[in-house]
């Protein structure tokens, strides 16, 4: 038996922060103190708190260290594991009180969460099937093998689970449709083509708990009468692909996947398909076509539902990673258990990738119905640097931006949709006062234009037209009537595109116009960018009274645009300035001499400069 178990997070985030070096160093130190047989090191999946990585938890006492490095290991082993003194400097510090927190239970980022989909993420070693089995893994499969398909489907239906891929279609109803269609062959497909910028929950589940997805697939297969599944994963997720393949091999070795599973006569095979870098393949018909080895373009209308005629025209049940991974628990704990969580119309939990301008960012799971403001201010710990909250973007390029007045919203599929945004893939990007809403809208449009498959005109050309108008606005060439034109174009693209990508592409623009129209107007009429982002509408200037001539900006200006003698106020040559903002960032806080100006202030400065 081990005295202590140390969990080191080995999700993509923590690995890039040096988790594997931490492990290497820890092993060496343990050996030095002859502790290698007393302490077991576990590489776990994502804990969600990627920003504070690498995460390092010691059990059984549950001490949560974060931001540890390989260099910290000698001290940590010596002080904590040998002498038993907690190393305070490596503990989490509350951003408001500055106090140390020893257990994750007391960290606000975790306290408000409820983890069902992410139940095992960061808890088990994802490459060890035994750890999954201990936490009731494959019990749901066992139970489902003894159930009638109808019974399984009823359980899923009664649980109220809705597709966690974003659209929120009732999962049980989808299963029922797939079950009722008669066919010699049916497929189950797991959509792990998580292409939305700002979302990484599917990746974390596959990296942290791959067996739960496999078990979900098998239960789905048993329910609808299918013996083969495909998991379509983004090629940009190499670790997820590797762990999934390893999980499949282990499950096959254990006889939990393959022929005659648990002597029940049920056969099931899981194939992994790597995507090849096309966002549109997250759309169901495009995904299916891509698996068939073709150009991943959505099927033209009218088209049968994928559930009726999908892969090779066979009935195909398509579910998202998160939906599948929560299925085993629903079977295990029953429909009522799941239906008891969340709101009346939206059961269970929602997983968000909370990022952008928050003090704490990472992967979170919360009960449906939680207040938007609670997510941002309590879990996210508010906005850093004393800045003001401006908006929160949810649902990626298909969603929208919600302003402060919506922070009271009880978050679920329906309320977000009503407010002009959507759950979507679960990206939740917090924007502060230094974010320009027109620029954000332009950013998303740029994404859609690049990712449009080009098949239908409204999406291919319409989004490009919208982007050009937005470019004009951001560059100070906006004209009266541009906003109306954007609204009209947006509406017709929504009405006439053939797939979900096109139909939702204008959302970021429409919702920002809805809530932040004054910012559009400021760009168009006053040629100002209130958030000081759009380069053509701002200039940098040095306050002659505040500047002490320290020379920091002059030495670092890549364009050589700053002149001035030592200890004399410096001046920016506006002709040469590329507005890279390096001088603005470098000017010491105690001077704050570099100013960013927009609109009338530019004109005033030009006059004041005596030109």
């Amino acid at each position, binding site marked *: 038996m081990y005295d202590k178990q140390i969990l080191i997070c080995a999700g993509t985030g923590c690995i890039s922060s040096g988790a594997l070096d931490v492990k290497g160093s820890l092993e060496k130190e343990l050996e030095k103190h002859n502790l290698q047989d007393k302490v077991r090191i576990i590489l776990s999946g994502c804990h969600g708190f990627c920003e504070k990585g690498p995460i390092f938890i010691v*059990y059984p006492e549950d001490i949560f260290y974060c931001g540890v490095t390989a260099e910290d290991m000698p001290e940590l082993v010596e002080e904590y594991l040998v002498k038993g003194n907690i190393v305070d400097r490596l503990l989490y510090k509350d951003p408001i009180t500055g106090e140390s927190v020893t257990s994750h239970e007391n960290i606000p980022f975790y306290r408000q969460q409820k983890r069902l989909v992410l139940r*095992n993420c960061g808890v088990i070693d994802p490459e060890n099937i035994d750890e999954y089995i201990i936490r009731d893994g494959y019990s749901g499969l066992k139970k489902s093998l003894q159930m009638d398909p109808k019974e399984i489907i009823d359980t899923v239906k009664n649980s109220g689970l809705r597709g966690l891929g974003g659209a929120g279609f009732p999962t049980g109803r989808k299963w029922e449709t797939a079950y009722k269609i008669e066919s010699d062959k049916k497929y189950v497909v797991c959509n792990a083509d998580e292409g939305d910028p700002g979302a990484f929950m599917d990746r974390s589940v596959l990296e942290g708990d791959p067996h739960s997805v496999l078990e979900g697939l098998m239960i789905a297969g048993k329910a609808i009468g299918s013996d083969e599944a495909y998991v379509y994963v983004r090629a940009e997720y190499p670790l997820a692909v590797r762990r999934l393949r390893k999980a499949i091999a282990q499950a096959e070795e254990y*006889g939990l996947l393959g022929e005659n599973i648990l002597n029940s006569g049920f056969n099931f095979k899981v194939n992994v398909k790597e995507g090849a870098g096309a966002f549109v393949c997250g759309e169901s018909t495009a995904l299916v076509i891509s698996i068939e080895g073709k150009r991943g373009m959505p099927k033209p209308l009218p088209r049968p539902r994928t559930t009726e005629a999908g892969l090779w025209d066979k009935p195909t049940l398509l579910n998202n990673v998160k939906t599948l991974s929560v299925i085993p628990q629903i079977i295990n704990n029953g429909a009522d258990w799941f239906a008891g969580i969340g709101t009346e119309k939206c059961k269970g939990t929602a997983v968000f990738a909370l990022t952008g301008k928050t003090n704490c960012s990472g992967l979170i799971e919360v009960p449906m119905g939680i207040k938007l403001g609670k997510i941002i201010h309590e879990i996210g710990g508010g906005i850093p640097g004393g800045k003001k909250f401006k908006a929160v973007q949810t649902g990626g390029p298909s969603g929208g931006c919600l302003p402060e007045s919506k922070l009271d919203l009880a978050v679920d599929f329906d309320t977000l949709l009503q407010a002009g945004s959507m759950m979507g893939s679960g990206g939740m990007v917090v924007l502060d006062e230094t974010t320009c809403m027109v620029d954000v809208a332009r950013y998303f449009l740029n994404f859609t234009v690049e990712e449009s498959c080009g098949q239908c005109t409204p999406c291919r050309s319409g989004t490009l037209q919208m982007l050009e108008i937005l470019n004009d606005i951001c560059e100070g060439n906006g004209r009266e009537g541009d906003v109306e034109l954007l609204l009209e174009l947006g509406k017709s693209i929504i009405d006439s595109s053939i797939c979900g990508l096109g139909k939702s592409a204008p959302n970021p623009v429409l919702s920002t116009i809805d809530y932040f129209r004054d910012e559009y107007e400021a760009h168009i009429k006053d040629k100002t960018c209130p958030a000081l982002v759009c380069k053509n509408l701002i200039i940098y200037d040095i306050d002659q009274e505040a500047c002490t001539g320290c020379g920091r900006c002059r030495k670092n200006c890549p364009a050589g645009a700053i002149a001035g003698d030592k200890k004399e106020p410096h001046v920016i040559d506006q002709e040469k300035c590329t507005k890279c903002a390096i001088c603005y960032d470098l000017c010491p806080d105690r001077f704050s001499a570099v100013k960013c100006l927009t609109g009338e202030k530019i004109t005033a400065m030009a006059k004041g400069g005596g030109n």
Partner: protein
Amino acid sequence: MKGEIKLMERFIDPCCDKCVNSKIKPCENFVECRLSGPICHENKECTGKRQAIIEKYNHSPGFFQH
């Protein structure tokens, strides 16, 4: 005791020659048996072997579930 536990390092390993599970002839109670077995026979040592794996891997009660 330690020497015997080594016979079953992973759940897939048979606890003794009474275990019938194999990939070719899977045992329908495999999953339950790993957690609370053995089911098909009674043997304290076999129970102990399973418990040892559970204790080894059950490092944390799981968190954030409330």
